């Protein structure tokens, strides 16, 4: 990052740099040049939709010179013809080559050569709160043809796991996202590029979602490493399963936690036994512990435990909170194993 942002206080640096870019010592490019450079890789995507609440447009980012576009998986792509319009007005037919239903990302292929791409540099460290970012997206579909997508400025306000939904639809991704202080949950914004002030792709704007608990519309982006993982999975053919709106379940027995029998609709998730030698035993969980949260999310029932664990990816850390003798105890169970028994 720029040296200024480390010198804190961050609000001062942000405010000053935003208003007077000349104050950035030795900055190579103006914000305008940075935006203009990155915006060449941002794609206006037009597909299915146009009915109430479902726009027929979104945004994507060219990530290879040979025409791979990463975008969000949505009903817009549920169309025989997906029009992709580049910054210079060139129009391509996009072909859906795969999707990651958990991160809700998809990859389109355009027939092109030497296209302006923003590389998916997965090895970047995660951004911290206070990092200055720019969001490039075709919000409200306001840009057409060779018109440039919209640029918004902001900072990463927090890095937290996503817990979100839209109506009855629950977002399957539970990993970390960047919460942004600029309004990116506008129609057309999903799939837009989150870049840093050097023009590097650092994330992808997510779908329009509300926080599960508060109902607040979330302005967030998936970190670039998650985007890169999804891209790699899709290209390797590992994640082409269709999206499902039903959250999959994951039995905590795989981690060594045997819950009390599921007798009622909302059986409280008391632990009946802990299998010896299991991650649960290593973490110190005991029989009669009451599970109250998994990865920070309240789990009022056995069903909720299974669903929350199901929303995690294999390899995601599992962190549980239990009530034991009136005390709150936190335990780390390590990475979540792959799905049991190849179900």
């Amino acid at each position, binding site marked *: *990052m720029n040296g200024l*942002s*480390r*010198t*804190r*206080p*961050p*609000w*001062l*640096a942000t*405010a*000053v740099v*935003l*208003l*007077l870019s000349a*104050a950035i010592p030795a900055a190579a490019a*103006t*914000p*305008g*040049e*940075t*935006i*203009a450079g990155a915006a060449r890789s941002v794609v206006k995507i037009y597909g299915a939709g*146009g009915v109430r609440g479902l726009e027929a447009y979104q945004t994507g980012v060219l990530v290879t010179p040979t025409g791979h576009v990463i975008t969000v998986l949505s009903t817009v792509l549920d169309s025989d013809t997906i029009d992709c319009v580049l910054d210079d007005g060139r*129009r391509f037919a996009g072909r859906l080559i795969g999707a990651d239903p958990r991160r809700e990302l998809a990859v389109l292929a355009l027939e092109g050569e030497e296209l302006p791409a923003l590389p998916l540099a997965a090895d970047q460290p995660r951004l*911290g*709160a*206070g990092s200055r970012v720019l969001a490039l997206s075709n*919000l*409200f*579909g*306001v840009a*057409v*043809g*060779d*018109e*440039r*997508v*919209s*640029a*918004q*400025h902001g*900072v990463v*306000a*927090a*890095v*937290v*796991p996503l817990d979100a939904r839209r109506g009855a639809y629950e977002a399957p991704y539970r990993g970390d996202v960047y*919460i942004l*202080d600029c*309004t990116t949950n*506008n*129609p057309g914004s999903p799939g837009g590029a989150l870049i840093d002030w050097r023009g590097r792709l650092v994330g992808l704007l997510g779908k329009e979602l509300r*926080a599960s*608990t*508060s109902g*607040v*519309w979330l*302005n967030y982006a998936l970190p670039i490493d998650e985007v890169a993982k999804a891209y790699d999975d899709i290209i390797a053919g590992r994640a082409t399963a269709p999206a499902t709106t039903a959250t999959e379940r994951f039995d905590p027995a795989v981690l060594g936690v045997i819950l009390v029998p599921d007798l009622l609709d909302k059986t409280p998730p008391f632990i009946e036994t802990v299998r010896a030698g299991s991650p649960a035993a290593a973490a110190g969980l005991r029989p009669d512990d009451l599970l109250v949260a998994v990865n*920070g999310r309240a789990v009022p029932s056995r069903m909720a435990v299974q669903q929350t664990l199901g929303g995690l990816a294999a390899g995601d850390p599992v962190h549980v909170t239990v009530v034991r003798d009136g005390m709150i105890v936190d335990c780390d169970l390590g990475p979540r194993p792959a799905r049991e028994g190849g179900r």
Partner: protein
Amino acid sequence: MATVSIVPLNGSGARRGAVSPAVALSVALVAGLALVAGLALVAGGAALAPRWALAEEPGGGGGAAPPPATPDVVLGAERDRIAVMARASAAAVAIFAGEAGGGSGVLISPDGHALTNFHVVQPAGVAMKCGLADGRLYDAVLVGLDPTGDVALVKLVGRDDFPWAPLADSDTVAVGDPCFAVGNPFLLATDFQPSVSAGIVSGIHRYQFPAGTILEYADCLQVDAAINPGNSGGALFDAAGRVIGINGRASFEKRGRVNVGVGYAISANQVRHFLGALKGGRIVDHATLGATVATADDGRVVVSDILESSDAHRRGLRYDDEIVALAGRPVRTVNAFKNILGTLPAGWRVPLVYRRAGQQREIAVRLAAVHAPAELAALVAGEGGPRQRRRPGGPRKPPAPGDEPAPGEAPEAAPGRAEPPPLPDALRGLHESRPGYANYHFNVVERQRVAAAIAGHHVIERPAGPWRIVGRLAEGEVFRVELSAARGSIDLPTGTTSVDAGGELDANPSPPGSGGLLAALLLWRRLLLDGPDALGRTTYWGTVPGATVPAGRQAGAGADSLPFADVLESAVAGVEVRFSVAADGSIEGIDLWMAPDAEPCEVRFETGDRAANGLPQGFVVEHAGTTFGRFRIDEVVMEPATESATEPGTVPGAGDADGDGGTK
């Protein structure tokens, strides 16, 4: 399209809604005071409580280390920024329109001219109260209205040294430029202290469709600075504190009428195109080409329909021609075409480049008005006229005799014709109603200003006799023109023609093929001799791009450097004539129509060195798209008055007595 609700931003109704903590905080944010922690609270809400990352700095700086000294360059930049915002805030106007709401504005001249939105002043009527950051409340009077472009000009009174902000050339604004909005969001400025919100320019040359009662915004600037209800009419400033736009609308969805990071400002250059006419008290209209365009399968922008009565059609534009450029700006999308057209006033003549069968042609097209006068009046009254204009307790007056109500409108619904409430003392004598004008008083002011400039520029002997002009055409042949109060005649290689100056001029478009050159020159002489008021019913029309600008880069390009010419319009002796007048008072051109739908005679005076008496060195005459002639003046002889020549119309044919006019 999506179900996007787009809402105008006047403050009406804003006070009824509670201001949420998020809104309050965003206001603090925009003042540059927000902490990252505060931002996170707003952005994340309660949903994200478990894992705050408050102390994490990019690069792992940590929260515990003592802060290093802030570099001087940062502190200096911040001081500069604060100073710029303070200057800009001083020019900000908080407009209060009584129970109708209010909005914002910005002062653009020390004598009190302030820009705002049409939709802000529309409910206010002729008089309003305006608060400035100095804590004082000023009376202001409506000056001019652009109901199509959502712009209004008002004038604050009581000082001649108002703080003001200059208009920038908005075509030099780039995406990513820092900018800030100053205004009166949610009508918070009860102490007249404006709110500042900072952001970046998100998009330029944006086109926003009209939606419901919301007006089309063409070629506007898109910003992510917080634009909320009540910001309407306030200025968008660049980092140097110059006005780049007038904030007017925003895209809102699903969160009610609050900022979602997408605001739109009318560009300063669009405002500049109309500013002259607005200062002249007019209700201005926007332009149509008389043709619609569409995107062809191969991406070209082609004419999809064209009116045969349009000037574009007369100049040769046809169905399926590809539009290449308009008013000096390239057209690559339908939006670009609408953007350019949407910023141009009706009546301007602009270059149009089109392509047919691989061949590119350039024509000059005179733009027609979008609305009929009655439609414009209805717009000003508001579609729901009576509802918009309702005042408590006041019974509606019956129409006054002689009023002409617009169809479906009560006459009192139209400002300019309405029976205005009594003006405050401070505004007495500053308003005059007249159809077609927001405030005719200022038309008189502008007309007198231009008349004084013309009189100051020309040195003319009075009382005057005939003027004899001798010179050469481009081909070297001699021409002679004689102009007197009674008669005009011209001696050309093709023959000699004359016009009776005493009667109606519309019967005689002499010389043939010119569209009425002699009539134009006769009226030109009368203007220089006796001033605009003596011509007939003369009004101040507004401004056009000056004649000194090369054709092809008139509107739009580098507008800050464009000199505009004032235009006087006169209906006289059966013809309609417009004189364009440069800032120095010299006459740049004449457009004369023998009939309302006729092709005008267009005279453009040479703008090089002028003679000591202020008269031009030459002129070019165009008619119906072709050049009638190029005239270089060698000599102008102004004869002293004789008894017979001073009274127009009384001695028809008196010029014949001079003998040498029409004998060759």
